[in-house]
């Protein structure tokens, strides 16, 4: 076969292009939303009762096992907190803190995971829309869109999204609300594993009603505050506690969603674009005219 110059150029162009394509890391098609994901349009939430948690960490184990997460490194949290922080390998974590309640020293446990905000900062922050709030409640993440900029991590008021720092091809990782289990009619793995009844899965309105009943039934056992009902416009995960939430280590948050000022500023972008363009054109025209008249 005779290769003329043009064919040769084509061939070499194609092979270079092919090499570039092969050289690129393969796209990771993993998305929290899979064919088995929930899409029934019914809102879901979880109520966590600090006073009922016994700190067994079955939720942590179930989460690792369902999400196939690798082991994490040991932290400095002592025996009750291990590891010490949420990470790309740990989507949920039990932390312990000692309190004096009615003269008795008591250990209180708190479960940490994504709060699945109703108006999430991360979803607004993500420039490529890799994070989405589903109608059912879970805030889900899509690898195939993410570029790894980490703005979601900076924006999250609860400090939840984590990054795979040690990987050359790193992604964002966080609790998925077991959106793939919900689609099969199952509860999230942590809820299903809880032997103490500290976690309850259901409709957020029902859960808030139940939380109020629990507070009303035993007002001496709970403080009158459902964390997540109003915080930052509400979260899909709700908390009940016998001590003020800031003492547990939760941030004291406004009821206003964090995106209010951002949305206002973003709304000013187009008017500003046309305004500045018009102003500059006007100034240019005026000055040109004045100078022509002069000279």
């Amino acid at each position, binding site marked *: 076969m005779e290769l003329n110059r043009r064919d040769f150029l084509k061939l070499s162009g194609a092979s270079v292009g092919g090499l570039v394509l092969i050289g690129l890391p393969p796209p990771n098609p993993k998305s929290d939303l899979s064919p088995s994901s929930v899409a029934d349009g019914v809102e879901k939430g979880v109520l966590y009762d600090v006073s009922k948690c016994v700190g067994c960490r079955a939720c942590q184990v179930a989460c690792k096992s369902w999400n196939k997460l690798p082991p994490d490194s040991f932290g400095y949290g002592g025996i009750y907190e291990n590891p010490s922080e949420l*990470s790309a390998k740990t989507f949920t974590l039990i932390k312990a803190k000692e309190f004096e309640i009615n003269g008795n020293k008591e250990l209180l446990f708190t479960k940490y995971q994504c709060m699945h905000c109703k108006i999430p900062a991360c979803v*607004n922050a993500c420039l*490529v829309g890799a994070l989405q709030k589903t109608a059912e409640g879970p805030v889900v993440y899509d690898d195939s869109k993410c*570029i790894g900029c980490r703005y979601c991590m900076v924006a999250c008021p609860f400090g939840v999204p984590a990054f795979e720092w*040690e990987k050359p091809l790193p992604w964002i990782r966080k609790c998925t609300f077991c959106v793939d289990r919900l689609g099969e009619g199952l509860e999230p793995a942590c809820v299903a594993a809880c032997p103490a009844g500290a976690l309850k899965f259901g409709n957020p309105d029902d859960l808030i009603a139940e939380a109020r009943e629990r507070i009303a039934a035993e007002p001496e056992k709970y403080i009158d505050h459902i964390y997540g009902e109003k915080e930052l416009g509400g979260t899909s995960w709700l908390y009940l506690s016998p001590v003020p939430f800031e003492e547990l280590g939760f941030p004291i948050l406004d009821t206003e969603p964090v995106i209010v*000022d951002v949305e206002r500023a*973003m709304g000013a972008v187009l008017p*500003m674009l046309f305004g*500045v363009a018009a102003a500059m054109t006007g100034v240019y025209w005026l000055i040109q005219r004045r100078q022509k008249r002069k000279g």
Partner: protein
Amino acid sequence: MRQEKRSFHIGTLILSALAVLSLPVFIIRYVSGLGAISNLSDGRPWGFWISFDLYCGVALAAGGFTLAAVVYIFNLKKYHPVVRPAVLTAFLGYLLVIFALLVDVGQPWYIWHVIINWNIHSPLFEVAVCVMTYTAVLALEFSPALFERLNWHVPLRIIRAIQIPLVITGVVLSTLHQSSLGTMLLMMPETLNALWYTPILPLLFLNSAIAVGLAMVIFETTLSTRAFGHKLSLDILSGLGRVIPYVLGIYLLLKLVDLGVSGELGLVFTAYPENLLWWAEMIIGVILPIILFSMPTIRQSRKGVFWSAVLVILGLIFNRFNASMLALAMRPGYTYYPHWMEIAISLGLVAIALIVFQIAVRLLPVVHLEESEEKKLERITPDKGVSAEVTNV
């Protein structure tokens, strides 16, 4: 003269060394991940690169659009000699931002996702679009220097024909971009200290960028004209300096009124230790420059104008570091101080940008003094060496 030439060579040597030394760090980053070369963590996901390369880099590149507007829109021809260095600095500054982001972003090979997946609600999307489009505009704005050198008349004529729309596009994009960096921080009302967090943060960022844009033009033209043996008429420098107190005055007023209206003015005294950062950036970058640039004796001296401009620049760097790092709360249980390799990357990129700037100034008509200007200079400066340099370049 000889001494100056030698120090210039040593400078180039140091810059080359910095550029070469950063190379292995780049390789480690792509082979072993961000954790291997940085102290970034889940508690501090954005660090030195975002604060220095993105936040300071974009603001310090503001001289490009400010000067382009002054010369081509407001038609102040006097400043024509400094437009090209300003546009070149801005262009290289934006390239530096892009390269730094290619290091900082976890999956830079997917950066094109931004072009196909739009989230128009994200301030960072606005930032990304502005970086891409404004870099292209800056390249076009600077391209006449290249076309003149190559004697390409047709593209030169095309650029000249669209020059005004191009400059206006640049001003519009810069306005949006400078302010959008402030908008990005509006997403953190719960973690950014109240001394910096305000709904008018985008406006403050734009305002301070204009001030530092003027200061950067003073800074870089003083340095580059000295390195190449030119001397720019003091009139141009002091004219730029004269405007700075007004721009910074508006900034100071906006800051104080904003804190007053929100009832947070007391934080200036009570929010220890953050208030010390606030005072430092305000005194260094705003109050002192307002006083200094208002004094005719300072404006009449090259040194005075230069060092006052340096104060504005330092104050801005301080402000951007405060707003994007020091006053932004970390997740509890974490600490952060930049890893030396993080700084090595940034220094390497700055060094490369400065080397390219030097090469560009040598090869292309960047620092072009008009004929009359040169003659005037020869009269003012009897130093034969200087005038010889001028005619050589």
